[in-house]
């Protein structure tokens, strides 16, 4: 019996012990509520840090430069840059030129305008824009409006509007979000988004009525008392890289200029009126070469261009910062400089060349009549080519001697400061104007190169090759993303559309072309106007919408206008140009978001 009692006692004791132990251990369950302790992360909203990020989305692709902590997934980080994506989507399908590397996913479809809803580049821009919008929404949901907060809020609203503008322009009808939430979103029609942008931008400018604003803002997700904070952008920007009211005015001018495309209702008067606001602002065309080495136009795109686009009277209205050390991005200034050059080109501040972008014959035609510039088929002896015995089998069509030159010579040869092109280099690389490339996309040397963007400093003489930038690998060239010249062109086109071709011609000749030291145009028609847009803004990421608006892009009207370029409706050069379905005037919504969000796809896709 004793044994039993002993056993029971031991058992009791051990269960007691076990109980105590178990209790102690259960406390460890609380360990599961772990707090992150990575020194690179914080857990709470930091208003200034997120504000910086919102501007930085224009200039970088992630939290580490040039790459390594990207913002957008499903696309190469270097490609995912705001500037680069806007450039690629708006220029590769147009008459300016394209990317020769067929292997880059989604590229061939852009070049021949045959994209579908699963194109990775189209998804890339879409997700980039919405990433930026979510960031802005997050800021607006959490920011404190005190002190510097009010200006920050207005500027963030502008950046959000800018991102929505590109959604409106490129996609039309898109989901509309004012907060970061898993709640189902309303898909705005293109008209609805247009109206929303109109009120938002006017409010930022200070011209929206209270009633307009109240019906427009979703107060439930905003923490502030809108009546008691300054809702407008500042009159003068707080630094070279921030925005003020003029940015809202120029974006409004762009909205009105394209209003017919976006809503079916033209707004030429308003476009002119808002262009005037910009023209009459403190920001002015940069008309005089400051350094004396390069033209004023060229100075806008150089390593030290902040001197000409920044300040309180510069040409830039929204400037995106790039710096060789502090702010590196594969899709910003580096892209604009490297992608357009091949090894052996003149020094451009850095040395890395990608040989990616080739121009189109139609682009050359904007500067000199193609048949004048092009020599007949010749057999060029190219020193050090792969196989000299092949020369006769690959006839090349090169520029006539008078049209051969580098980027410093071509503006003079073509009589326009903006013709910063490259057609010839004497010693080993023969750069020729050639059509009928044997491969689908051609090769880099199939056409002249665009060398408008450079890392050189305007203080450097044309033949200077010493390094003056902050880094030998990354250019310091800022991006004048919105600039005054657009207001003049907008005003000119608005006048032209209203029937005042002479007035329009005058603005173009006296403002735009005069600054570029180009001969005045004698007459102006739709096509010359369209070409002038390209001459002024080529490779700045805007071409597509000008072609759409002026009726040269897709659809029966464009077909009837008979303006074709290699790639428009044709898969191969040499083939007859086909008509292009009007659906291509906008991009399809990425299929991935259509599926998860249940969106209505753009018509025709």
């Amino acid at each position, binding site marked *: 019996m004793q044994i039993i009692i002993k056993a029971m006692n031991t058992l009791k004791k051990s269960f007691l012990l076990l109980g105590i132990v178990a209790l102690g251990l259960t406390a460890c369950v609380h360990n599961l509520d772990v707090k992150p302790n990575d020194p690179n992360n914080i857990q709470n909203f930091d208003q200034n*840090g997120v504000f910086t990020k919102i501007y930085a989305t224009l200039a970088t692709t992630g939290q580490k430069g040039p790459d390594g902590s990207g913002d957008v997934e499903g696309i190469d980080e270097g490609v995912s840059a705001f500037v680069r994506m806007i450039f690629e989507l708006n220029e590769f399908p147009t008459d300016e030129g394209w990317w020769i590397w067929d292997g880059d996913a989604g590229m061939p479809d852009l070049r021949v305008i045959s994209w579908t809803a699963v194109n990775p580049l189209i998804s890339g821009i879409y997700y980039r824009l919405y990433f930026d919008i979510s960031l802005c929404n997050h800021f607006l949901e959490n920011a404190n409006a005190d002190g510097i907060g009010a200006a920050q809020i207005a500027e963030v609203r502008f950046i959000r509007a800018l991102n929505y503008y590109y959604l409106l322009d490129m996609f039309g009808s898109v989901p509309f979000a004012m907060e970061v939430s898993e709640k189902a979103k309303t898909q705005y029609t293109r008209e609805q988004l247009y109206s929303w942008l109109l009120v938002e931008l006017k409010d930022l400018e200070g011209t929206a009525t209270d009633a307009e604003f109240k019906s427009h803002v979703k107060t439930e997700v905003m923490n502030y008392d809108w009546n008691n904070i300054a809702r407008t952008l500042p009159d003068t920007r707080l630094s070279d890289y921030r925005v003020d009211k003029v940015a809202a005015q120029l974006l409004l001018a762009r909205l009105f200029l394209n209003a017919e495309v976006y809503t079916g209702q033209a707004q030429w008067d308003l476009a002119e009126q808002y262009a005037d606001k910009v023209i009459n602002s403190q920001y002015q065309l940069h008309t005089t070469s400051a350094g004396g080495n390069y033209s004023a136009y060229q100075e806008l795109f150089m390593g030290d261009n902040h001197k000409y686009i920044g300040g309180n009277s510069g040409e830039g209205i929204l400037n995106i910062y790039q710096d060789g050390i502090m702010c590196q991005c594969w899709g910003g200034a580096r892209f604009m400089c490297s992608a357009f050059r091949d090894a052996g080109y003149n020094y451009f501040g850095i040395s890395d060349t990608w040989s990616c972008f080739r121009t189109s014959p139609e682009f050359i035609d904007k500067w000199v009549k193609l048949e004048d510039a092009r020599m007949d088929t010749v057999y060029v002896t190219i020193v050090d080519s792969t196989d000299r015995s092949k020369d006769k089998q690959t006839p090349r069509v090169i520029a006539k001697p008078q049209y051969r030159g580098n980027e410093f010579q071509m503006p003079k040869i073509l009589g326009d400061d903006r013709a910063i092109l490259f057609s010839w280099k004497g010693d080993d690389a023969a750069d020729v104007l050639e059509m009928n490339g044997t491969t689908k996309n051609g090769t880099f040397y199939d056409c002249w190169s665009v060398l408008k963007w450079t890392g050189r400093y305007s203080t450097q003489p044309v033949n200077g090759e010493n390094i003056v930038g902050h880094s030998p690998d990354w250019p310091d060239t800022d991006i004048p993303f919105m600039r005054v010249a657009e207001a003049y062109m907008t005003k000119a086109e608005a006048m032209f559309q209203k029937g005042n071709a002479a007035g329009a011609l005058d603005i173009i000749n006296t403002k735009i072309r005069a600054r570029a030291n180009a001969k005045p145009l004698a007459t102006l028609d739709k096509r010359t106007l369209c070409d002038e847009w390209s001459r002024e803004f080529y490779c700045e990421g805007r071409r597509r919408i000008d072609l759409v608006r002026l009726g040269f892009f897709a659809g029966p009207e464009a077909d009837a206008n008979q303006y074709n370029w290699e790639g428009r409706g044709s898969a191969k050069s040499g083939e007859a140009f086909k008509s292009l379905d009007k659906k291509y005037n906008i991009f399809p919504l990425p299929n991935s978001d259509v599926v998860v969000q249940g969106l209505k796809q753009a018509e025709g896709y």
Partner: protein
Amino acid sequence: MKNNLLSLRAIFLSFLLVTGMAAFAQVAVQGTVTDAANGEPIIGASVLEIGTTNGTITDFDGNFSLTVKAGATLSISYMGYKTQELAAAPSMSVRLGEDSELLDEVVVVGYGVVRKNDATGSVTAIKPDDMNKGLQTNAQDMLQGKIAGVNVTSDGGTPGGSSTIRIRGGSSLNASNNPLIVIDGLAMDNNGIKGAANPLSMVNPADIETFTVLKDASATAIYGSRASNGVIIITTKKGAAGQKMKVSYEGNVSMGNLISRLETMSGTMLRSVAQALNHSETQMSKMGDASTNWQDQVYRAAIGTDHNISLMGGTKNMPYRASIGYTLQQGTIKTSEMQRVTASINLSPTFLDKHLSFNLNAKGMYIYNRYADGSVVGSSLFMDPTQPVRGGSATKMYVGEDGNERSENEIINTWFDGYYQRISKGTYGDPAWPYTKNAQTTANPAATLAHKNDRANSGAFVGNLEGDYKIHGFEDLRLHANFGADYSYGKQVTTVSPYSYSNFYYGWDGWSEEKKYNLQFNAYVQYYKDFTEDHHFDAMVGYEWQHFHRTGSYDGWGTYPTNSQAVDEAGNSLAGKVYEPSRNPNSYMTESYLVSFFGRVNYVGLNRYMATVTLRGDGSSRFHKKHRWGLFPSVALGWKIKEEAFLKDVSWLSELKLRLGYGITGQQEGIGDYPYMTQYTRSLEHAYYPIGDDSNALRYDANGLPIYDGTGTVVKDADGNIVYYSYRPGAISEDLTWEKTTTYNVGFDYGFLNARITGSIDYYYRKTTDLINTVDVPVGANFRNRVTKNIGSLYNQGVEFSLNAVAIDMQRDPSKFKWDLGFNFTWNENKITDLNLGEEDSFVRTGSISAGLGDGYIQVHKAGYAASSFWYYETRKISDDKGNSYIYAVDTNKDGQITQDDRVLNKKIVSMAPFNFGFQTKFQFYNFDLSLSFHANVGNYVYNDVLCGNVYSVAPDNLYSTQNGGYHGVLMSAYNAYYRDGIQPDKMRQMLWNKELGAYEATKTKFNEYYYTDLFIEDASFLRCDNITLGYSFAPKNVKLTGRVYATVSNPFVITGYSGLDPEHFGGIDNNMYPRCMTSMLGISLQF
């Protein structure tokens, strides 16, 4: 429950007392226990009257005395010996035989052991084969080909490199597919550390007693959350109580040679090929006069040596084992080497009449690694063979950035440390460095090896203390606790010379450091009961707590050369100063916790029917509170059919057991530690912006490193703008929860002819649901467009078969000839059933290749196909009427053009072999032994990226390139593919569907994406001989010593139809892997 147990116990004890009183008669027993082999007394053997707690232990002379009831049976047992049960007699002489089969009989399962006979799950235990082990620097090497369903692929020939282990295919897509590794009861985390590839490298292979692999869910479910990919349990060797001290030494020396290399064209041949192709004089003038075999500059015979000494033995209550080991292994690529020192100690004392026992393990390891730059594998193939290793032409002149012209030889000797390299004009604006390398060319591999010093030092400590207490007076109940910790540290330091190709001018100094510690505690209570002879029952409940913690930091920078004449804006010399744009310092810290409760109930009835039920609940700190806990149950049933009356007397059948299992396991790896929380990531170097507030202005400390506590100096860019760092909110996955794998298993264990032939066969089906997957989410809902969610499902099913046989056993013959055979076979099918990507055709790209401009993927995950199935263009070779043949890519979807939609998948073209085989055999004859082991994969495909990368470059127009200033090396297989087999990527054409004709038309349209075609996807089935060993054992009569000498050849041959160097690649892409070598080894082992 408590009360029930108590009352059961009470009734049972009362019953014993009553029967005891009834019997009444007593016998006094006197006895001696000796070792059957040598007749020496056994001290401390336990003698127990069966059915009672009445017992004693033997004294110093092996004697015992005990009074028992008449007719009682005594159980005499001692660790390491077979237990004997004998009828009590007044005088007894007991001889205990050594129990060599003990380990075969007991298998380790999670939190306990089970008799193999009673195991219900699919459990395979192996003892490392001491006689045929080959070169084993890592424990994973011992598993290859040995166990059905376990596939081990080494990552190449890197000394001390890691392997990929897959048990029954992979249960995940994006989460981890690595098995859980448990070392002496300690579940390791799955990450390696700088210099140590994975947790298996923490154990010296010489210390391993057994490997146990738990494959099906009924066996693994007790490990719950981390066991979806199987569990490998490693038990290290221990001493035995009362055993005399044994000293063992094992040592070997080895040499590794590359017996096969990829053949390259000699310089002489390249010259004649260029002539034959009519290359111009100018082109040919770029050739050098040498004929260098660049692979000779890279590879060497690799020496290795390995020494291990262990001491083991035990006093009465204190068994011990200690060991120390040293390993040196050179790699076959020059400069690469690993050195390792390991030490381990094990103590397993018992107290309180064996009621309380402890087991203490401590293992320490120090590893030094020197890594070779892996790029030399490729560059030694592509480097121009006409150029010398050192020096250059005295007549070829190059203009520098300074405008001066110098000879190639002078430039190479001044700015390239004498190593030949193609030259370009400098871009540094530094008069002292007017040249640079031509960045379009290949790096001289000899220079790469000489100019890079990349080394890592790492240390690891793994220790645990287990305590086990059988409650006095209530021995059926055990309390068990295990506390363990592992700590590891690694630091890698990389120095690259400014004369190097990769870091010309600035050079590179960098380091990265990692520290981690994991803590673990578990405790369980086990109640073990034989109610009657026929009904055995045991139950266990337990608790576990694990903490994983990891920190790291790194920094790296270039420096202006010491002779630089570069100056800053103020005109100060920059020589020797850090080149700031290159610098990238950072540090990180992360941790997670797992808390678990678990229990198991075993029942064995009539020695025939077995049932095991387990349940585990795991909480992970990686999931939001709402989804934190996962419940992982399992049920397994076993039926020993052989024990049934109708088979009992069938003499040829010695064992037949049916096992049925079902269970669920979980997965939480591969998602980061904090996926459900909002976190803001600070921007790092080169991602600053000049807009912000004083609170987020970038500041540097005195060392020029960023500091975030508000102190330090505000940083400005060179134009005077203050720059600011930013914060980016991260994605939040609040709904994320456990990925779950449900496994069904049916298996038979069988034995024939008195267990001369044994084995098992299993069928399994494993379905994974709630796949942890990164998927598109609605815009505007999160801060990332792709977020990790639980979406999709896949399954693996397969058959495993193993057979072990003693073919000949002539124990009585003086030759003692014995022939053992072992064979295993696995068939596994992996299939993704649902990816939920929305569109039927959607897929996830994977399997990146070197071609395709950074966007090249040759595989996809797609519903209806195996994970990582090849996705390619089909080709056809057709001759035209002129007799020229072309290869055409086919417009498979017949839309008249070739787009990505024409790429196809084939259910058979998969990277993971559906069939695996392993085969081992061993002959023993007199004192000699000869063993061989093999493994084979059948049905696996490999993308030959090496061939693809080279075949384009051998086209007549590509042999010479203006951009890289001359010729390049030519891989003979690529040359033959191009000129002999007609695989000419630059001349590929398109075979388009002509709608009007309703037929395919061979067009002249060029096809560019040759690298995505089936031309480079090859059947890579193979049979590899892993080891051949010949040994001789000796036991000199006059010396107390036994030993064995042996010679081994590892990896002597591979039989395959694959055209590349080696057909074995995890993931199915062959891209310049560090080649595996053949190793020849001489070794000796001694025990005294």
